[in-house]
């Protein structure tokens, strides 16, 4: 089931309205407790815009990727690895 955990809907410069059905803004309890402690699962797709580290959103902001390409990249078949 495709879901993104993100807080970037607060970013008014980018319109994510067409991806509303994908976006879960609050995350689950485990995410809130543990995501910053360690990577406890690779089932999560997380989109963030944090000043402490880079993120794929930078590619959209700088014109390297479109939003659609970013979403495709985030949900690329993980089993291909």
């Amino acid at each position, binding site marked *: 089931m495709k879901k993104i955990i993100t807080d970037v809907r607060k970013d008014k410069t980018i319109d994510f309205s067409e991806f509303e059905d994908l976006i879960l803004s609050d995350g689950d309890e*485990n995410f809130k407790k*543990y*995501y*910053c*402690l*360690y*990577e*406890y*699962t*690779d089932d999560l797709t*997380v*989109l*963030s815009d*944090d*000043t*402490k*580290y*880079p*993120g*794929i959103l*930078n*590619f959209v*902001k*700088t*014109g*390297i*990727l479109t939003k659609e*390409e*970013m979403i*495709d*990249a*985030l949900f*690329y078949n*993980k*089993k*291909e*690895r």
Partner: protein
Amino acid sequence: MEKKLYDEMTENLAALEKNQDLKSKNIYLFGHCEATLTLIDLLLLKGYNPVSILDNSNLKQGKKYKDINVVYPAEIKKLSIDEQKDTVVLIVSRFYASMFRQLRELGFNGRIEKIIDYNSYSEYSLSEETIDKMWKREQQGEKLISEFEKNYGGAFKVYCPFNALGDIYFMISYWPAFAKKRGIKDPVFLVTGEALCDVISMFSNYRTAVYEKSDLDKMIQASLYINDKNSFIAHQDRPYVINLAKALYVKKIPLDKIYCCGVYGLLPDTLPQKPYINTKLSKKYDYIKKGKSVIFSPYAKSVPKISDEIWQSAIKYYKDKGYELYTNVAKGEAPLNETLPLSPSIKDFPKVVERAGAFVGIRSGLCDIIRETKAKKIALYPDYYYGDTKWKAIDMYFIEEFDQNIEVSEDIKWETL
């Protein structure tokens, strides 16, 4: 492979041999990468015969390394329950956690062993034991941060978690533009080795601090956990919160643009700072025949080797042209046949290459150090894919400033270059 990691690999393999009867086991490897190939070499040396290399990538299917085939992980489902008991899967990839889970989901119940701990950030478990271990790790990280802040006051921490000259080169070359954008005035770059400090010093007299990788990883995790806004992780791939590399599944983005646009959010036309090259070269290099020497650089971590035949053909060509021949070597590395060893420091290397007049090297971070050097420069790219993407190494690491960028697949006609 870095010596530290190779030592970890040999120690862990020795421990495994002691605790298990490996000789009676069918050995599989998971993840076709340079580290796996190095492990295979070690296993063959010890008299083991690995069965297959498991890999999810379509691009790698059918490849062979020393007669060992790359196959899909699903192949392991063909093993009976009894056969699984006699099977062990060895993993040296940083994707250990997801590989472990995939094997279990495929129904494989045999032993799965991590031979190198590449990725201390990930463990796919919410067991009490795992959570407790990770809490302790985070606490250790906070302690290290506290010690750093005692020594460096309110300096801005720039974490550089990976021991790679090229990554550091790009990181520092775009740093001034990023620091200006963010108003950062007093950075300290936290790195995992002195050579990386040398690369940084080629750009300015920035402050640096060297940490063991495991300690740096702990500090980075703690920074995330305590939301330390006086810090930045300046890497394109580590740790797990950074998802830049996923962009490569849909688009080819060369490494310098990954740093410029991805890591720093700078526009694509942002110009990187160029390094300051020492104007004076020590007299100890006067023996190098100026303009008529060639420096070979055949060694690189995490990159498949280029065959001896290629190097020997290059040596013959330059020797016939009357060049003096040198091989750049680090501790423990041997010079190529008919060449003399040379081990200049990172800071001296550009000027040494300039004095020599020619450089032929496997594409590695060392090539980035000499991008601006005035000499004939040739980069040789082994034929391999960048990570698990469909892009070749030459796509990702192409150097505009070099005279030649050659993907090595067959003989090179040196006289035509």
